[in-house]
């Protein structure tokens, strides 16, 4: 029996094939397949091709269930760059792949937990919209934590 294949399309219009029984680890895809059989291309308008390639690699893993936890950890560890992890987390959120989302977010949290404020802003490209006075007010309120 030949296995059914789905085609996923990234934001930049690249096509990726994946076997349906692996793709349905994504709850989003599972629901689409259930709804209309998803015979055609499934577009993922917020996922770029590099990230989608990673997601496909993850979905294609051949791990025994008891080793899965370690595999996910290692999988995100090997892609320890924050921008990549954030893209991965967003893709996992859109596709509703809980384990991958959890692992990617956990990894980012691990990476930034000892950062200074400035480093956090830089890593996540956030603009500081606080005045020094406002920051001082928070520092004073939560003196014990600084």
């Amino acid at each position, binding site marked *: 029996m030949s296995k059914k294949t789905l085609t996923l399309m990234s934001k930049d219009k690249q096509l990726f094939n994946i076997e349906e029984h692996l793709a349905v680890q994504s709850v989003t895809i599972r629901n689409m397949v259930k709804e209309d059989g998803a015979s055609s291309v499934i577009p993922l308008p917020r996922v770029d091709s590099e990230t989608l390639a990673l997601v496909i690699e993850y979905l294609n893993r051949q791990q025994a269930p008891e080793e899965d936890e370690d595999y996910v950890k290692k999988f995100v560890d090997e892609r320890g760059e924050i921008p990549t992890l954030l893209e991965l987390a967003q893709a996992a959120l859109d596709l509703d792949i809980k384990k991958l989302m959890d692992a990617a977010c956990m990894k980012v949290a691990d990476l930034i937990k000892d950062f200074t404020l400035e480093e956090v802003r830089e890593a996540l490209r*956030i603009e500081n919209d606080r005045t020094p006075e406002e920051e001082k007010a*928070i520092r004073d309120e939560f003196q014990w934590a*600084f």
Partner: protein
Amino acid sequence: MQVCVQEVASPGQRLVLYKSSPLRSPAGYMAQACNSGILKWVEIEDGLDHHSIQHEPVMNFDMDGCLAAPISSTSMIPGGSVNGLICISQRGAKLTDGEYKVLRLFQGDLSSHPHISGRPSLLDEAEVYTLVAPEDAAGSIFTFDLDKETFQLFPSPPTEPGAMPKNRGNLGVLKGCLCKLDIYAFQLKIWVMKQYGIKESWYKELVITQPICDPQDWAMKKIMSVSLVVKAWALHSGEPKFKPWGTHSGGIVELEIFSNFLLFGLYSKSICQKIMPPINSAVENLPLDVTVDILSRLPVKTIIHCKCVCKKWHNLVNDSYFINLHFSRSPSGFMAHHVTLDGSISGMLKWVEIGDGLDRHSLRHEPAINFDLNGCLAAQVPSNESIPVGSINGLICIWHPGVDNVYVCNPITREYLTLPRSQNNEDGCGVIDYKFGVNSLTGEYKVLRIFRVDFPPYPYVSGRPSLLEAEVYTLGTSQWRSLGQVPYRFGGFRGTFLNSYFHWEIYHEDAPGSIFTFDLDKETFQLFPSPPTEPGAMQKSTGNLGVLKGCLCRLDIYAFDLEIWVMKQYGIKESWHKELVIAHPFCAPQDWEMKKFMYVFEGFQDGTILVVVGGKMLEYLPEINFFEDFSLLNNCFVRMTHRPSFIKLKDIDSERVHAIKR
């Protein structure tokens, strides 16, 4: 061609009103009916896997005779819409300072300027882009900057080598990016400028072949950019139920809703987020869900630091969604009271975090979560007289026995509330215990107060049981409620809290080892199934309740061994199961005295069990079937499990809450 710019007075209150919820106003389009002055509004919804385009008649606007000048409505040409204001000419808004400007283009000296072709598009800092089509540089773009009020050349898409001569090209906006629709004899190409102003970011998004069949439509395509946005939008979202719109089929289908109407632009009641250009970072557009998820996994101290990162994060971590998500992931641990060298208890509660891995557990003192009881609450009480009676959802209940004051505090949010004084047993001399718990059905936090009514017992008669009464206080209310007499006599010294119930051993010579509970929901005392008595078992000296991996358990102490019973299914008598027998645990006679106060504290996946004996913590190791001491917890008196949380007392009772000092 000449230009004049007129500034429009601030639109005032109306705009301010809209600004308060700038993100919520839907995006949509205005379309003008072909032979009338009616503007028809069409709302657009753009979901991840689904979009919808819907006519909303409430927002229709009839231009007929609504303005001062008596002009025929059919000759009125709406020129644009910004922030919900519609103009009868080209109009833009400078978003940085909210100045509104109207640009008027009129025929002047034809030779001195490149001539304008195509429709202008408004984007970002309200610059207007228009195509220029001088013979030698067809398809170039220039802009009018509403800020500097100047015209400038602007990067245009690259010319593809060998491409056919194009018929026409028109600008538009596609998902917040400037785009250009190039029209060739047999196909359409859509170019998108992914990063505003960066020439290299022009990207060929889409090619559609033979989109239009009728010859008269070919004439129409010169002005095709107008409807580009809606159509391309539909093309792009790829909603599977609208197959003709999917990119794989590559066709364009007319929307019935727009027939006989002329689209003239994006219309939204308020500042439209969609006209913001995407910044070069996925991070910038990171969904809130991802941000919240990451923040909820950070250590408490880092989360507080993150309040300083930006205003958005500050609001995020104050939100109840975040608070609940964080608590669901908050590490488990316990509070231990620090004991000074001379043996007295200091006011410092030390927090120890528990890591429970499948094959390994860990205990780690985390000083950041330490809580110093010294002088942090209203009453000036020596710190060694503060007794933490329990911790639920990160909230700690503290009792000052001497003055009988009771507080509930959250060391993380730095809040505490003082419970009102009870009218019964006012001096507090007869109070034997307080208990703090939460009704998991209603989320109500309750404090139980148990006191002797026959205090002081004169004349003192040894063995005479005291008459006990109880009352309960629900956080957020104003008074204690009496529950009357406690129908059972306390055997064990602690009340173990689990599943909205407190559990105690009954003191009874004929029926040792019975259990009774207090139901926080119904507020009643009741008998509870206890472990079976084994035939021929030795008389046990004592038994104490505890919690082991989420199950109620009892540690039975016999002359020569210990037994641990676990109730696998809560409330089911038959599920009591003898988990463990440990032989000869103590040698020294003074230890035998201590074991009266021995109970199971926590169990780990690797089989290790934490046991507390008179405040001291021991670790039961399954591989040696025996106990080991903790050097980590030397000089500590183990009090209670505690998981840090950001739960706000202010949300429970705003009136009684004060800030913890320092």
